[in-house]
């Protein structure tokens, strides 16, 4: 019953109802029959059950408040056949000879609602003593006035109000449509940006690749050259003291760096510890000694023991000052390494000085040959390679650094390229529309919190009274879900049908519960706004959000297509 009714109700619209009304003479229809079904009730001699043509009844059995037809079609205007539904329990004497598979032939009690939009009211609501004005503004479903109830016709008023609201809504929807177009255009632009960037990146990558190659060659060249050198810079020319100073300087630098890093880690651990202790203190105060399990009790006892022990070392300001001083550069501490540095002599000048005494072409020829020979000897293992020692020549280091930098550039370009490509292939919904919303945030207040949605990024709960923000989930996927909700007069509701839902998961974990997660269901609206935030169950949230981004297409807000489909 319910599914048939819902779909038929959803299909009902002003135009077709009006058209049928014009075609059929009104007034001749039995109570509760819509123009759509009027043809079944024309015969004035007998009535044939709509889905059971073998059953014929005298016409006075129509709407006599007794269910005769197995499909309920003899009672379009009463609740007598309301029990014919898979939702009701059945016994042989309730459902007639055809068994429990009966389905109602009619979608409901037809309310004409003159001055407003006609609708079907579920048969369960007919003559139950309640005026269902939200469905039946003319009050005609309470025709029997049970218990003295009188439902006056309010269609003029309700229809007028509805029209007014509807106009606003339509206007708003128009705006929303425009905004969506803008969003789509913006998304296109952003997509273009990405595509352009990809192109640029492509060129950049090519350039970088060339550069890397070039620098690789250069490095090889420099290395080769360096290997040829007889005497190495550094240890050869620097005396033992100089070496020591160099090592000391290096070591001090290392220690300073490590100290700084360790201190940072200490501070962050200290903060985390403080946070943890305050959490546990709150936990101990707030836990329910009766209603938590042994694990909790053990944890509390352990915490109490821990808290009772001595606290370890309190942060010591003097100690920190010492550390500050130590971390300062050596120069600030009155130690200037440069003072201990001995002058460096170019090995070129020393080793090969004699060449200067030769004619230059001979000199350079010899020089070249000597170097080549040396390299050959080194490469063939005849001569020891003095250049492979810990200190590389500056020239090699520089070349290597240049190469590394270039490689890094290339790597980052490639990464960026991949990211952009991925971004381009990512699902941003129909028309790529969410590309323009990504990273935009909307929020709403509910209870003691402000809830924020940053599209395709995360959902967050922020206490109004201050304090830490709680991550309620990071964007994971987009899904299509089916909703079936009422739309309030202001149009801020999901309506019925399929809607886009964004899943945000893996948020902050809950005590005794899962990691927080949020389902954000989108409905059509003029502006981005959070309509509703619900904690459906512990730490599982549902946000209903209006956005122009879904105002067209299959998964748009229902209200965009037809005015009162929720009925």
């Amino acid at each position, binding site marked *: 019953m319910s599914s048939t009714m819902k779909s038929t109700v959803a299909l009902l619209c002003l135009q077709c109802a009006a058209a049928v009304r014009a075609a059929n003479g009104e007034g001749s229809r039995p109570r509760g029959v819509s123009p759509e079904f009027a043809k079944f009730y024309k015969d004035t001699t007998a009535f044939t059950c709509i889905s059971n043509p073998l059953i014929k009844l005298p016409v006075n059995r129509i709407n006599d408040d*007794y269910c005769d037809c197995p499909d309920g079609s003899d009672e379009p205007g009463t609740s007598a056949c309301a029990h014919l*539904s898979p*939702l009701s329990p059945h*016994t042989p004497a309730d459902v007639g000879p055809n068994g429990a598979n009966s389905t109602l032939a009619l979608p409901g009690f037809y309310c004409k609602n003159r001055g407003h939009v006609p609708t079907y009211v579920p048969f369960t609501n007919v003559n*139950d003593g*309640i005026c269902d004005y939200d469905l039946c503004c003319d009050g005609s479903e309470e025709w029997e006035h049970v218990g003295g109830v009188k439902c006056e016709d309010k269609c003029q008023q309700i229809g007028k109000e509805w029209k007014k609201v509807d106009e606003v809504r339509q206007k708003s929807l128009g705006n929303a449509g425009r905004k969506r177009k803008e969003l789509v255009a913006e998304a296109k632009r952003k997509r273009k940006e990405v595509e352009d960037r990809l192109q640029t990146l492509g060129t950049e990558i090519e350039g970088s690749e060339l550069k890397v190659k070039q620098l690789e060659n250069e490095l090889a060249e420099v290395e080769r050259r360096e290997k040829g050198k007889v005497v190495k810079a550094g240890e050869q020319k620097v005396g033992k003291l100089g070496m020591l100073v160099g090592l000391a300087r290096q070591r001090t630098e290392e220690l300073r760096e490590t100290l700084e890093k360790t201190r940072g880690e200490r501070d962050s651990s200290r903060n985390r510890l403080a946070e943890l202790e305050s959490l546990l203190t709150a936990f101990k105060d707030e836990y329910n000694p009766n209603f938590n399990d042994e694990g909790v009790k053990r944890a509390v006892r352990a915490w109490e023991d821990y808290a009772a022990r001595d606290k370890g070392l309190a942060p010591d300001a003097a100690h920190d000052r010492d550390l500050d001083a130590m971390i300062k550069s050596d120069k600030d501490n009155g130690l200037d390494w440069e003072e201990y540095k001995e002058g460096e002599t170019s090995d070129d000048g020393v080793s090969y000085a004699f060449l200067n005494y030769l004619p230059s072409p001979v000199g350079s020829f010899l020089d070249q040959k000597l170097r080549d020979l040396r390299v050959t000897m080194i490469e063939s293992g005849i001569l020891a390679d003095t250049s492979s020692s810990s200190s590389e020549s500056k020239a090699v280091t520089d070349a290597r650094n240049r190469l590394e930098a270039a490689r890094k550039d290339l790597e980052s370009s490639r990464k960026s390229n991949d990211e952009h490509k991925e971004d381009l292939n990512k699902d941003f919904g129909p028309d790529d529309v969410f590309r323009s919303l990504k990273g935009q945030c909307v929020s709403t207040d509910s209870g003691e919190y402000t809830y924020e949605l940053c599209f395709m990024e995360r959902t967050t709960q922020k206490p109004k009274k201050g304090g830490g923000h709680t991550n309620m989930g990071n964007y994971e996927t987009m899904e299509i879900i089916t909703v079936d909700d009422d739309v309030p007069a202001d149009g801020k509701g999901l309506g019925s049908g399929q809607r886009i839902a964004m899943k945000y998961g893996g948020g902050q974990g809950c005590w005794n519960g899962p990691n927080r997660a949020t389902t954000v269901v989108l409905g059509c609206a003029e502006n981005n706004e959070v309509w509703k935030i*619900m904690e459906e169950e512990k730490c599982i949230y549902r946000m209903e959000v209006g956005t122009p981004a879904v105002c067209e297409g299959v998964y748009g807000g229902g209200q965009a297509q037809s005015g009162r489909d929720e009925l």
Partner: protein
Amino acid sequence: MAVLGSDSRRWSGLLLIFVFLCSFITPVVTVKHENFKKCDQSGFCKRNRAYADAALSTSSWQAPYSLDPASIKFDNGMLTGSVVKTIVNTAETVRLPLTIAFYESGTARVTLDEERRQKGDIVLRHDSKAKKQRYNEAEKWAIVGGTTLSQGAATSKGAEKGTTNISYGPAGTFEAVIRHSPFGIDFKRNGETQIQFNNRGLLNVEHWRPKVEKPVEEKKEGEEAVVGESAKDTEEDEGTWWDESFGGSTDSKPKGPEAVALDISFPNYQHVFGVAEHAGPLSLKETRGGDGKYSEPYRLYNSDVFEYEMDSPMTLYGAIPFMQAQKKDSTVGVFWLNAAETWIDITKSSSSTNPLSLGIGSKITTNTHWISESGLLDVFIFLGPKPQDVVGAYTELTGYTQLPQQFAIAYHQCRWNYVTDEDVRDVDRKFDKNRIPYDVIWLDIEYTEGKKYFTWDPDTFANPLGMEKQLDEHERKLVAIIDPHIKNEGNYPVVDELKSKDLAVHNKDGNIYEGWCWPGSSHWVDCFNPAAHTWWKSLFRYDKFKGTAKNTWIWNDMNEPSVFNGPETTMPKDNLHHGGWEHRDVHNINGMTFQNATYHAILARDKEEDKANVRPFVLTRSFYSGSQRLGAMWTGDNQAAWPHLEASIPMLLSMGISGFPFAGADVGGFFGNPSKELLTRWYQAGAFYPFFRGHAHIDTRRREPYLAGEPYTQIITQALRLRYSLLPAWYTAFHEAHTNGAPILRPNYYVHPGDEKGFAIDDQFYVGSTGLLAKPVTTEGADGVDIYLADKEKYFDYFDYWMYEGPTTVSLAASLDTIPLLMQGGHIIPRRDRPRRSSGLMRYDPFTLVVVIGNSGDAEGTLYLDDGESFDYEEGAFIHRRFEYKSATSTLMSEDLAAASASPSRKTKDYLKAMEKVRVEKVIVVGAPESWKSKKEVEVSEELAGKSSGTKSAELEWHGKEEGKAAWAVVRDPGIQIGAGWKISFA
């Protein structure tokens, strides 16, 4: 380490296997045993069990109590006298004033007090301000009627020497044979002994004594104190007489040992039932150990038992110290009126008259041993012989169950917690949208601002009135929780008044008691105090409890009372209540006084403010004998597990036969997430709970029926709609309970007291007097159940009219969408078949009568109907009809029962006028005679305004038998009023 060698490896291997095996055992959350006392941790229980052991281990035991013959007086249905207790091995005696009252109803009552305490002639320790008497006000709370002394009771002539005999009861068929020494009483019916007091000599009234400080003997470590045999004989073990510690708190016991205990035997009775509330079988088990038996006594000490365990004599939230014994064709009972901690040992002994009979013809006798920590020894005796005679007499004393408003017996949707008022509205809309009926939505503690009752959280429940208005649009109700702990916090007017008016429970020093509960530091309102009662009434006025409306009702939880940091999660026993009574004396009544205050507060709210004469609805967790007058109970915090679904049925059956039938268990299970199958089966069972509420813990996933998905939602909806269509039958059953105390869910023994084979059956039941026999599926994956049919009668499947014939056990298929439900032949069941959004919207719907013809060819049934909300029924505004089908005349008649029970008033007329359009739209006859085969119509005549209308005819549709299914017929719209007299002739 090296020396461990291969042995250690073997051990670690075993350990590994053990750990491995353990990982296969699903971790089951169970009750925290260490939080609750066992008998040997409760001094008085330990002492009395030891006393029993000593007495029963010797054949020469002489109970040291005798009735002084010279003191006996009998006058006007009341015997008085003095029982003298001889203190072991001394010449000292203690006088215990005795009264035995014989009431008109056939109930007798034996009361023993203690003279010295009665006179206040004792000294309390620790400068206690407690009252010196034994608690003698339990009757003030529990007893409301049935205590007219019998004029017919008389001393019988020809009593044996050393006894005094009183004959009483209906036509003098009852007799109390009072033995003087040792003191004891045999209660007889028609000359046959049914109940024996002190037959085994376990009577023990711990008299007051001063504490004598003795030099403490040095005990060597690791050695038990050795007491010489002679010392053992002369001295009682004083170890548990004075201050007692448990779980870190010490009970100062200013009055010293003061227990009362008595053995009560039921000769030749195999089964005993009652002493609710326990999670175990209906037929109580033996408690002194052995295979399949308990080793702990049944305990009654109202407690907030977290994650309670199945099949256990452990105490739960409420206490009804009423026990029935059952043998073939005879039921008797006792009611132990005592509000202190109570333990009951049960043993059964078999005796055979002929040693050669090899058990055949041997008789089983059930022996019970009742032990209470303090108070009077005060016992009521019911001699039956029918189950209803016993339950009826007990409820005559303690009151009949409230006639609830109709919404209260429809479906309740609860959760800890619906988090905002918008959340509530949303759930309300979703029920409608999914065409699922419901009547009431509930709010647990989170609606309050910081757990301060009578406030609303301004952030989450900003508009409670708007929410209530939306609910009211479809005649739905809101139930909000109010607990007895009042948050101890500044700027909270309720606690300020509680303190300034001095209305809270006091600690042993007389200061206001402070403990922990949901709000943290809290005080407890002392509803024993009439001033507190008056104050409590004022709090529920609409202008005091702002945000409540006429459709707001109340849930009282945590009223055992639950105190998170108290001994056994409750109050210290030496706390003081109004009048100086120690908490130990009144503990089990405490919960009832709170519900009582709330009941009267709601009554006052509606009477004074609306001039509305409506019946309050208050749910309670803790209860005592008499709580049934005040509203409903539920079985507390169960779990979403099959054993809990299974246990709910014996538990509710036990509540039903204990005079408190308005009972339910949380559908779906409170803790944990039920599988969809379990949830569905639980709704099918819940549709047969007198109190039908779905509830869930805050940490569980949402499980409103519309969330289950198909096919579950549809099946659950069918179960809910089945409950709604049968509401007229349920309401009639409630009315019957309200009139005579009859249970609503009736176990086999109650309906068939002559059928010994069915005495222990507690997984199937009859609904009121309708003949509906249900056996909900309570096991996972079941596709059928076996139902025991006790009588030689036809039974028909409710849903397809399949026919069975008792006595036998039949197998019913029960796929997930089927509830095993039979109709016993011989009944007429009233229904309303039109599905509506709430029960209130069914008020003017027509009726369907289902006539179920059994072996006799006849059938009968009743219908009680009123406005379902007000007290106008007390002034005659109701319809009460008896329907009868007689095969001899082939007529179905409706006969007025109202005229017999009340004289018509203006309200009667008004009500009948309002209902005059309500008709019987259909009569279904199941098991219709073959002779109707060719009948096409029946003759209908109606009596209106005292005159008989002419005869009209109505169509008859007849269907023959089909492969096992019964023939049935339908009378089409006979056009008769439900409230009028009429006759349908099938001849």
